[in-house]
């Protein structure tokens, strides 16, 4: 019961934020596309028709250089981008939180772990991702692996700093004084309190991953036969007449807009959640 009440309270607070609602609506739109892609998309994105058709009744956004329906590519592309984004952010979130909790709560462990995190954070992300992707076979699972490896340290650092402050709160000290075991304190008193922060972090991580995946594909380091938005951009970009004709309007622009709007929606949701978590920020972001 309390969970439902909490959720209701949360929703009531959340819907106060116009940005948050817009973001949520856009995100839901793309999630629907991704989940129901086979039903929504007019064709199989790998099926080939007459190449370079202009938009028309058969192909709403025309066909690409080897005759695949661009609209279907976009719809299936949502699957790839969103799947990678959410999978990575959840897994790296779990790993990051676990390490964050432990390192914040146990000082020695924290000290050593933080040095590792430092090392990871010192490495610029995208260049490293490019190097690794260039050496490994660019498949979706390899990309996911790389993003997780590079994603957890930031989460760990953020969670740890929160845990360090929570640890000294009176109720935690009180619990410790009455002899509550560490796991109990961590799970019952600390985890629920870092949770809001974690959600914000997950959202930001998801948008980072979408950008990184698109950039890699755009640079030609993704799986060349996968249908992702970045890959659509890549093939459009290397097509010889793309910028001296109208092609870009239905080949490049939609994919670019999809990426932009997905990231925009995640950013809006992130803002809205951040305001909830940190009431001091309330009213700072308005449209």
């Amino acid at each position: 019961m309390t969970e439902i009440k909490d959720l209701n309270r949360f929703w009531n607070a959340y819907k106060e934020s116009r940005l948050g609602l817009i973001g949520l609506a856009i995100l839901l739109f793309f999630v629907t596309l991704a989940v129901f892609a086979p039903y929504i998309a007019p064709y199989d994105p790998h099926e080939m028709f007459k190449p370079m058709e202009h938009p028309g009744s058969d192909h709403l956004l025309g066909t690409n250089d080897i005759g695949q329906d661009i609209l279907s590519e976009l719809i299936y592309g949502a699957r790839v981008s969103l799947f990678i984004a959410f999978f990575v952010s959840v897994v790296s979130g779990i790993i990051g939180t676990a390490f964050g909790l432990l390192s914040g709560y146990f000082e020695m462990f924290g000290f050593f772990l933080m040095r590792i995190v430092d090392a990871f954070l010192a490495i610029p992300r995208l260049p490293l991702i490019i190097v690794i992707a260039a050496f490994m076979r660019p498949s979706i699972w390899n990309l996911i692996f790389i993003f997780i490896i590079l994603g957890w340290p930031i989460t760990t650092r953020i969670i740890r700093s929160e845990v360090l402050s929570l640890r000294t709160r009176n109720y935690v000290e009180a619990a410790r004084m009455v002899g509550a075991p560490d796991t109990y304190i961590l799970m019952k008193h600390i985890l629920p309190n870092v949770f809001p922060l974690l959600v914000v972090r997950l959202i930001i991580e998801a948008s980072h991953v979408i950008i990184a995946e698109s950039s890699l594909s755009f640079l030609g380091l993704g799986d060349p036969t996968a249908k992702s938005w970045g890959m659509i951009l890549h093939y459009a970009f290397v097509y010889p007449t793309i910028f001296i004709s109208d092609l870009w309007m239905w080949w490049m622009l939609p994919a670019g807009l999809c990426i932009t709007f997905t990231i925009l929606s995640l950013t809006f949701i992130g803002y809205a959640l951040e305001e909830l978590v940190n009431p001091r920020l309330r009213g700072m972001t308005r449209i």
Partner: protein
Amino acid sequence: MKKGKNVDVLTLVILILVCSVFGGIAAVAADEKVVKFAGDLPGGDWGYPSPFGFYPRGPGYIRMSFGFDTLTWKDQNGTVIPWLADSWEMSDDGKTWTFHLHEGVKWHDGEPFTAKDVQFTFDYIKKHKTSFKWFQTLGYIDHVDIVDDHTVVIHLTEPFAPFLVDIAGNVPIIPEHIWKDVSDPVKFVGDKAVIGTGPFKLLKYNKEQGYYEWEANEEYFKGKPLVDKLISLSVNDPALALTTGDIDETSFWGRRAKAVSAFENKSGFGTRWGPSYWVLKVIFNCERYPTNLTAFRKAIAYGINRTELVELVVHGYGIPANTGLIHPDVTEWYNPDLPDYEHNVTKAIEILNALNFTDTDGDGIMEYPEGGDLEFNLITLDKFSREAELIKSQLAAVGIKINVKVMDMSTVDGILKEGNFFMVISGHGGIANPNILEKPDWPGGTCKNETYTALFKEQRETMDYKARKELVFKLQESIAENLPVYTLYHPKMCCVYRPEKLDTWFFTKGGVGIGIPIEMNKLVFIGEEEVRPAPSLAPAASASPGTTSAPTPIPTPTPEPEQPGFDVIFAITGLLAVAYLVLRRKNR
């Protein structure tokens, strides 16, 4: 605080203005004639343009040939014409060639060119065989005698039919006074390493950017070049660069030739179609199971639909290739009676079943006789990833699972040489010249066949054209039968240029040198009347989408107003954004 912000914005604006002014100055150079061209391949580094430094592929040789000359050369019609040698005679047995060299030729540093340089060149390249990575047949050269300062006699060990093109028209002559002290020619770079007799002197070379800059050799013995400066650079989007004037010439191949339609009939641009002696092929690893089985390779050939490939991926700007490599336009050598492995999925599956590949678990993918999915990598260049994607889906219908792996050209060439692959899609030119048949799987080297090699050698030493042609036919039959490679298509090719800069571009029949299909014959840049292209080229043999266009009349010199580029739009957007932010801050 507010004031500080405004100052920042002001600085930014000034900075942008200053940058654009300097950019403008750099663009408007003195009134010397500069021609900039870009290859079709982005990232166009073709190595240091010295005879030992260039990347051993056509465009590399071409860049080197601007600085170095050969004894003979080819004109537009593919006829061998006198170059450093004015005339030559062959002995009756075909083993002795006498060359009378042109008098008064000077090296770039002013030293005179003599017969000694020719002798030195052949001795030197023979001594540094492994350093000269380009096609060489110097094993045929026994020794070179000097008769006088301007006469040399080249003695061969065996008669060598294509001597005038493959050796005399291919080996760049290097100056003895510079190279005699060089022990490691590959590492020898710098001003001296590029001193030749050629029409251009290298000014700048930047490996990272793939940038070459030459200046005209004013004292060139064939006349002063038509341009003062020649620049080769690499651009991301050649069509866009051509429109904005960043380059003056480029060529489009295969599917990219679609861009040509944007320039045809557009004032200020000329187009010229060429046959393109170029082939894209699937190279098999003949040393690795299962691609070492001829029947397996045949199954793949039946599984690939080349007609669909040409239609969907090349958009009709190409023709299905001759399975024997030689381009169909080359009537002297082309064997028209070869099997073409018409698309036939059932037949492909039958062959695979006969080899004990069957789909035992019903997942649509065949299994190896010893178990495990029939699945392997197909390596290709980013340029050909669409071809690979289509072949992947075509072979999936047969039951072969392909993973496409994309790499850059030098990596792919390296993998081919190491033999660490199953299937590679790559291509090359030179298919107008039977010498390409020496290694059908070039640049790979896994397919060895002794009878074939012997046949090739015999062909090379047969001086009688008819007998030689028969042998060349047999070689093509062997390739089509054994399939060390399965050829995919011959692309069509078109060069697009700005006639006000230079309008002498042409494609050489049979290719430049030993058969390089690009439009960069150095004759293009030389002003002599007799080497200028004829007013209109004969239409390309096969029906090309736009037949050869007559040279566009040179437009009036009034330059068109430049269209605002993307950078301008970005700059304006940026300024607006800054202005908006400043205003917003003020309102608060």
